[in-house]
């Protein structure tokens, strides 16, 4: 049975009518045509499909759309603030912390979640928090540096 769900997506209210058990990843990618969120393993093993739901990093390939009702969803497309890149985005560019870029949206949103909980993580804490995010291109060291740079920038912005 199809049902209607309302949620906030990147600052705008959206309404989707669909079967409740469908995964958010596909609703985003195919119904809403927001393709920044990537499909890679489809089973919760890689982090490429990460989105933020009420500021928590969530694997959208494992998240039924019915659970999103009434919540706030941020995808990579919604991270910019009025066209201004988020410090994580800038830091990933600065450190060239990507190659093919396929894992990048998930990495950035995963890191975003980490920095909300732990604004000044050590590199060990970054590794622990990001362990479930895979980068076949092997940009891990640069991603760690980028997250630390972003943490510094955000600290500066807060103070």
């Amino acid at each position, binding site marked *: 049975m199809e049902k209607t769900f309302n949620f906030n997506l990147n600052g705008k209210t959206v309404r989707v009518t669909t079967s409740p058990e469908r995964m958010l990843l596909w609703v985003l990618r195919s119904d809403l045509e927001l393709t920044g969120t990537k*499909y890679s393993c489809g089973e919760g093993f890689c982090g490429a499909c990460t989105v933020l739901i009420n500021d928590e990093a969530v694997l959208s390939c494992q998240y039924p759309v019915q659970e999103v009702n009434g919540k706030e969803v941020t995808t990579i497309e919604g991270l910019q603030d009025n066209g201004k890149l988020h410090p994580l*985005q800038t830091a*990933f560019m600065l450190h060239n912390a990507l*190659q093919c870029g396929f894992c990048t949206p998930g990495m950035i949103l995963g890191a975003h979640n980490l920095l909300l909980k732990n604004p000044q993580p050590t590199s060990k804490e970054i590794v622990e928090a990001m362990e479930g995010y895979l980068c076949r*291109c092997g940009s*891990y*060291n640069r991603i760690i540096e980028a997250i630390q740079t972003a943490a510094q920038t955000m600290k500066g912005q807060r103070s």
Partner: protein
Amino acid sequence: MKDDEFIPFDLEKNLNPGTLDRREFLKLMGGGIVILFTVGDSLALQQARRRRGYPEDFNAYLRIGEDGRVTCFSGKIEMGQGVITSFAQMLAEELDVPLNSVDMIMGDTSLCPWDAGTFGSRSTKYFGPPLRQAAAEARTVLFQLAAEHLRTAQEKMKVKDGIIFVTKNPEKKVSYAQLTKGKKIERHLEKKPPIKHYSQHTISGKPTDRLDGRAKVTGEAKFAGDIRLPGMLYARIVRPPAHGAKLKNVDTSAAENIKDIQIIRNEDMIAVLHKHRDVADKALGLIKAPFEPSTNTQDNKSIFKHLKGSASGGEIVTEAGNLDEGKALASKTFDEVYFNHYVAHAPPENHTAVAKIEGDKATVWASTQAPFRAQGDVAQALGFSLQNVRVITPFVGCGFGGKNSGRQVVEAALLAKLSEKPVQVAWSRKEEFFYDTFRPAAIIEIRSGLNSLNQIVFWEYHNYFAGSRSSQPFYNIPHHRVLSYGGWGGRGGGRTHPFGVGAWRGPGSNTNVFAIESHIDVMAKSAGMDPLEFRLHNLTDKRMKKVLNAAAEKFGRSFSEAPSGKGYGIACTDYLGTYLATMAEVKIDEKKGEIRVERVVCAQDTGEVINPEGVRIQIEGCVTMGLGYCLTEEIRFKNGRILDENFDTYEIPRFSWQPKIETVLLDNPEMPPQGCGEPAITSMGGVITNAVYDAIGIRMSVLPMTPARIKEALRNGRAATQ
């Protein structure tokens, strides 16, 4: 070399020249002005003539728009290796325009010059020279035009940022865009102008950030699966459970009940199509399609014996002297065997294609390393003429050799034709593992000998199925013979392996360097020399000595006769002209059998470097990815089934595996640019096994060195050969 040969689609047969006229070509090129158009040929026609080479006409490579932006066209694709940046640097340098005025169009068969495909670390090495030549010629012609326009002799003018001005009176100037605007210029130079000397470079050779960075951090970068077309359907296809399994029958009735589902059967292909990917997934799950079991009986345990048994003949890759004479000179001989298992490409982006058909024309967006090959495949499958098929390659989420062939491209095209709708085929992770063309399992046997001066006097090398790349000795070995019994794509292919195998980043070389450099260490130990000293002792190649010394200097630790307990390793190689030496430090948790790689230093001489930052990124990526085939990556299979279906059992490197990685780029601008996307991965097997030996005194002869294998080796005091 056989392994390197690209098997081209027969373009001649499928080409029907003459329908795309000059006006259409100009339209295709968009709004900008095509400068210096010499003949009325379309790009397609030119490509037909020089289908195995790059076009002469520089218009095929670049276009200056009315707004002054320069578009660079390349048949190569961007899959993370960074040529999008280094090509733009080369073009901007040679044409004298700002780097940020260059736009790249890559892998589009209608717009870009023909190309065999993006593999073998060849992009810069082979596409770089014609690109530079084209830009140099364009720049020279623009100078001629400016001379006429400003009525000044060429020698009295200079160019900066796309503006040509009179040296003594800079106000007297004209831009490239002004020169080309609205004009139809047909001029070509008889004599090709020289390209700039590297000492004049201001853009090329400088560390440059990725030009695709912004698109990739904002989610704007489009991959094939991100293409959305009106009315597009997602297709899922029934797959056999095992290689070699035959379909018995099929019952689609349950799937037919799903709203808006379309089911297509075309010979053995059964597909379900829906406007939502996940609904198509669900429908696929409802199809009952029993298969006869595969007749293949191999598994990981039996494979090496099977491979050895299936080999025959043996081609000489290289030889010198006489093995018997060499053997007579030896005071000590060595006889070892090295093995590696099948390894998956496991790209983050699964194989994907979107196809649209209008009348007798097809457009396909594909995640492919070889768009022109895919174009041929689609033309053949649909019965279309080649030029009516356009393949567009958006960003590709890694290839590593796994996206050279285009099964999914043909599937999407056929289904688009049959369903009369645009169709996207995006493989699931399970399909990705199933249809991957794995790095072949391989066996290397080496027999060698040292004389009383610890010089290598003979070397007999038998290579079963790795492929011959990097198997030519670069040590001084007067008597040697290297034999290959089939490569990753050559002989032995289908009949030998239970499933597809193919090129895998640094094909052949990963296995060869692992075996060669392990064996060198075996001899070093016997010679009572430390592994660095022994290598230098047996080398005269100055470039190789230089990279070894550069790596050693950066490594900053001294080697001792192994096993020293320190866990230091070395490996060096020549990968298609790029020289490199890698040093590593490992620690071993003997209880868990786990190898922890602490630090890797890689020194590389890749000739002239276009983007030092890009080269470093590639080395770091190679080192990281290489840890996978050293430590965990091994495809498990049985009776034609691929048992690893996702990243839960097939473990690839993660954040916590990361060693500290240090890179040294040797300065060698006199040598034309060599490849850099693959070389550093090829030394990883050798350097890590050598470091493990130095740590625990056991020579691991099978890759990957899983915890189970390490523990078993520690228990038995020696490595098993499985």
